[in-house]
C-alpha cells in the first residue's frame, strides 16, 4: 500500500490547519455561509437534511487496518456509531457537528487520510478495481497508476475549478468491476505487442444525461499517461459548458463535438503538453509502484477448502473469488443484510473488518463501488474462521451480485438533493426476495436505486434500475431494465409509468417472474432482456 511521503503529509496537515481556522471564523460569525460553503465543500463537508455530512476519501478504495479503525473511531466519537460506504468507494458520516470537523480531519491526517476533493468541481477520488493486485484476470495492478493520478490531481491548480466535477477510474482487467466506461475518463491498462499501455475512454457518466464513454485512444504508452490525461482535461477545461450546469460535464462536450473532433483536439493538446515534461521519471513511478508490491503469499498454501459446513459452503460459493496466487482467495463482505441499509456498517463491524484484515488479509481492505468491503489476500485455510467471525457480527450474508445485493444511495432519508427515498425500497425488495434459494435461482442480478436524477445509486447501470422522482409531492419510482456497469456496459431503458413504493416491489417481482419464464440455458437476467427486448417485460408489468 502507498505510504505518504513528507510532501503528502505536509499537504494534508496544512489543509487541516487552514480549515480549522476557517471553521473558527465561521463559528465566530466572521464569515457568512455563502463565504464558508465553498471552503467546507473543498473539505468534503456538506450540509444535508439532518446535519452536516462528511465524505472521507478512500483512494481507489484501498485501506489498511489502521485506517479502517480510524473510520470506526470517527463513527463512534463524532457521529452516531456508524458510517455509510458509498458508490465512489468512499465513506460518509451523516451526523457531523461543524465544531468537530477540524478534529476529525486531524484524526484522519494522523493515518494518512483526508476529505479533500470529495466535493466541488475538481478531480474527485480516483476509483479502481476492488480486486486490484489480487485478481486472477488482471494484467497488472492498476493502483500505482491510480496513485500517480491522485498525486497529480491533488490541488492541481489548473483543474481545481473545472466546469463540473470530474471522475476517473483505472482498471487493468478485462472484467470491469469499476464501471470504468461510466466515468468522465475511464483508463484501462492493456497489453499490446508485449508492452503495457492505457486505453482512454472519455465522456462517460450517469446523472441526468447518462452516456457510455467512447474510446478516444486505444493505446497510450504508460510513460505518457499523465500528459495524455492532462490533455484530455485541458480540452474539457477550455470548452466545457460553464454556462449551463446541466451541460457542463465532459460527456456533453464529447457528445456535442463528437469523439473524432474531441480526439483531434486532445492529440493537438497532447503534442504541446508532452513538451512540458509533466510525466514523472520512470524511477519515481517505480518508487510508487514498489509500495504496491504483492504481499508475501505462500504459493504452497493448501488449495482445498473443507465444505462440510453447508452454510459456509453457500457463502464460499457466493462471496469468495479466485485469487491470482494458489491457496488464496478474495473475500467480499456483504454490507447488504436482508432488511438492512445498503453500505452502512457500525463502528463495531468496521473494527471487526479491520481486525480480520490485519490477521488474515495482509492488513488490506478495499471498499467496492457496490458498497461492500473486500479482504483481498486471504489464505483458503482461513476462510472458515473468517466466515464464522463475520457471521457472528451479521456480516456473512451470502448474496454478492444477487438481487438483494442492492446499490442504493442515501436518498430522501438523508440527502438534500433527493426526491424520493431509496433505502426503504431496497429494504422491501431484499425482504421480498429474502429466500436465498430464490435469489440463487435468479442468478446474477444487479439492482441499483437512486433517489434522484443525479444517479448516485447508479440506476442507469443496473440490470434492474430504480429512479425515485417527486410527482406532485409524492414519491414515485421509475423502473429501468437492461443496464450494466461492467465490461458489457449498457444503459437501462425506462419501462413506462412509475409506481408507488409497494408497486415498484410488485413490478420487480413480475419482471423476475417473466425472466424465469423466458430465459434460455445459462442466461443471466440481462442476457435474456437483451435477447427478448422490452416488450414481454412491459406486458408482464403493465398487462
Amino acid at each position, binding site marked *: 500500500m502507498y505510504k505518504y511521503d513528507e510532501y503528502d503529509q505536509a499537504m494534508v496537515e496544512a489543509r487541516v490547519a487552514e480549515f480549522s481556522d476557517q471553521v473558527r471564523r*465561521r*463559528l465566530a*460569525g466572521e464569515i*457568512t*455561509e455563502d463565504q464558508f460553503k465553498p471552503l467546507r465543500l473543498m473539505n468534503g463537508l456538506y*450540509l*444535508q*437534511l*439532518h*446535519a*452536516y455530512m462528511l465524505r472521507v476519501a478512500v483512494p481507489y478504495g484501498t485501506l489498511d487496518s489502521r485506517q479502517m479503525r480510524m473510520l470506526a473511531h470517527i463513527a463512534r466519537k463524532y457521529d*452516531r456509531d456508524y458510517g455509510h460506504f458509498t458508490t465512489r468507494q468512499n465513506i460518509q458520516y451523516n*451526523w*457531523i*457537528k*461543524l*465544531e468537530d470537523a477540524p478534529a476529525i480531519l486531524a484524526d484522519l491526517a494522523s493515518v494518512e487520510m483526508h476529505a479533500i476533493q470529495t466535493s466541488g468541481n475538481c478531480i474527485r477520488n480516483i476509483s479502481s478495481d476492488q480486486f486490484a493486485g489480487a485478481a486472477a484476470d488482471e494484467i497488472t495492478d492498476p493502483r500505482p497508476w491510480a496513485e500517480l493520478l491522485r498525486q497529480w490531481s491533488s490541488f492541481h491548480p489548473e483543474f481545481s475549478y473545472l466546469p463540473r466535477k470530474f471522475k476517473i477510474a483505472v482498471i487493468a482487467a478485462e472484467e470491469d468491476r469499476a464501471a470504468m466506461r461510466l466515468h468522465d475518463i475511464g483508463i484501462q491498462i492493456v497489453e499490446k505487442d508485449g508492452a503495457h499501455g492505457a486505453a482512454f475512454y472519455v465522456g462517460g457518466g450517469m446523472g441526468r444525461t447518462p452516456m457510455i464513454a467512447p474510446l478516444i485512444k486505444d493505446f497510450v504508452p504508460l510513460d505518457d499517461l499523465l500528459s495524455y490525461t492532462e490533455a484530455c482535461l485541458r480540452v474539457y477545461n477550455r470548452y466545457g459548458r460553464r454556462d449551463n450546469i446541466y451541460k457542463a460535464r465532459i460527456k456533453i462536450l464529447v457528445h456535442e463535438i463528437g469523439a473524432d473532433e474531441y480526439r483531434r483536439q486532445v492529440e493537438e493538446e497532447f503534442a504541446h503538453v508532452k513538451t512540458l515534461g509533466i510525466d514523472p521519471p520512470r524511477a519515481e513511478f517505480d518508487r510508487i509502484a514498489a509500495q504496491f508490491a504483492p504481499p508475501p503469499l505462500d504459493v504452497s498454501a493448501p488449495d482445498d477448502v473443507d465444505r462440510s459446513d453447508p452454510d459456509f459452503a453457500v457463502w464460499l460459493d457466493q462471496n469468495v473469488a479466485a485469487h491470482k496466487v494458489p491457496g488464496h482467495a478474495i473475500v467480499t463482505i456483504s454490507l447488504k443484510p436482508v432488511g438492512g*441499509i445498503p453500505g452502512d456498517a457500525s463502528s463495531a463491524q468496521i473494527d471487526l473488518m479491520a481486525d480480520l484484515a490485519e490477521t488474515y488479509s495482509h492488513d488490506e481492505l478495499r471498499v467496492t463501488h457496490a458498497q461492500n468491503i473486500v479482504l483481498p489476500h486471504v489464505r483458503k485455510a482461513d476462510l472458515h474462521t473468517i466466515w464464522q467471525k463475520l457471521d457472528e457480527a451479521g456480516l456473512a450474508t451470502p448474496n454478492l451480485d444477487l438481487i438483494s445485493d442492492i446499490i442504493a444511495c442515501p436518498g*430522501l*432519508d*438523508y440527502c438534500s438533493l*433527493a426526491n424520493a*427515498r431509496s*433505502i*426503504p425500497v431496497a*429494504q422491501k425488495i431484499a425482504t421480498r426476495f429474502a429466500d436465498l434459494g430464490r435469489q440463487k435461482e435468479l442468478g446474477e442480478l444487479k439492482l441499483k436505486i437512486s433517489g434522484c436524477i443525479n444517479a448516485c445509486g447508479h440506476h442507469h447501470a443496473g440490470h434492474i434500475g430504480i429512479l425515485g422522482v417527486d410527482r406532485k*409531492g*409524492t*414519491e414515485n419510482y421509475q423502473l429501468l431494465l437492461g443496464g450494466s456497469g461492467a465490461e458489457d456496459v449498457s444503459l437501462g431503458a425506462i419501462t413506462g409509468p412509475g409506481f408507488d413504493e409497494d408497486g415498484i416491489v410488485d413490478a420487480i417481482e413480475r419482471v423476475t417472474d417473466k425472466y424465469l419464464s423466458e430465459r434460455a440455458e445459462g442466461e443471466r437476467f440481462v442476457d435474456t432482456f437483451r435477447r427478448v427486448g422490452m416488450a414481454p417485460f412491459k406486458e408482464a408489468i403493465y398487462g
Partner: protein
Amino acid sequence: MKLLTGNDLKTGAVTWWTGSDWSIHIEDAADVGEQGEAILHAEEGARRVNAPYIIAGEMTPDGPRPAHIKDRIRALGPTVRPDLTLKPADPTAGDWVI
C-alpha cells in the same frame, strides 16, 4: 400556514422558528405568515442558522406539520432509523411523516 426552517450553524440540526427563537421540535414552530422574509433576513444576519427558508405547513391536532415530504422527514429524522429520530422511544412518532 408558513413555517421558517433552517439548519443550526454549529450542529447542522434541523431547526424551526418559534416566533422568538429557534427550536429543533416542529411542534414549537410558529406560523410566520407574511413576516417570513423579514424574519429570515434578520436571522441570516444573526448567523446562527444556515440557509433558512420558508415552507408551506399545516396545523394539525398534534401541532404544525410541513406540507412536503422532504421537510416532514427533516422534522423528525430518517424514516429508516427510528432510533436516530427526535423521538426514538415512540414507535408511532413517524406515522405522520410518510
